[in-house]
């Protein structure tokens, strides 16, 4: 049993928190993948770290990173 007994949040706040956390997770993913690729990580490494397929991470980020001039390792 927890010592504290917090008041459960209003459902509106809880649902808005979910939406905001998803947005923040997307922003952090964009920043973290870019930083990793700039420091020489490969697509398979980034994919494995994120727990998604290489195709998924490539599809989501390749175009943006190429446009930003990031040198991408093929393997």
């Amino acid at each position, binding site marked *: 049993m927890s010592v504290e007994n917090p008041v459960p*949040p209003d459902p*509106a*706040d*809880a*649902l*808005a*928190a979910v*939406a*905001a*956390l998803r*947005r*923040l997770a*997307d*922003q*952090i993913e*964009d*920043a*973290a*993948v*870019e*930083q990793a690729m700039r420091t020489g990580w490969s697509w398979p490494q980034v994919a494995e770290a994120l727990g998604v397929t290489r195709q998924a991470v490539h599809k989501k980020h390749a*175009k*943006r*990173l190429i*446009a*930003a001039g*990031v040198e991408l390792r093929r393997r």
Partner: protein
Amino acid sequence: MSAVDRMIQAIIERGADEALADGSAAIEAHHLLLAIAAHPEGGARQVLTSAGLDRRSIRAALDREFEHSLAAAGVSSAAFGLPRPSRGPDRPGQLGASARLALERGFATAARKKDLRPAHLLLGILQAQAGTVPRALALAGVDRDGLTTRVRAALTGEDRAS
């Protein structure tokens, strides 16, 4: 393409610019709100301005809503010190669920499609009871019902003038 289609396209394209700047994969209702606040034609922008809402203050209200909602989960966006990610080369072309709903509701407020004006789309956005836009406006101290009434009054005035 009709004038109404051009107006809708202009607002959606401006919304896509806002979505791209936001790093969002889809255009959402709050991007359309920012687009309407910057749209030069029709009375929607004037009504927003008279309520103290220009593009910049809406952007500030949205940022505040984001931080407020994160705080409910004990999180701050500033806690993660990564550099800002680069933006993609293309504007997102996809409408998100909130934007689709706002447009549907907005279209439904006009009697005929050819009567549709930015203020109708604004009404569609303001009708949402939950989500980012009503929360951001509430946090900014905006009376959404009062604003809706003013938008309807502006539309009636435009009808009389035309």
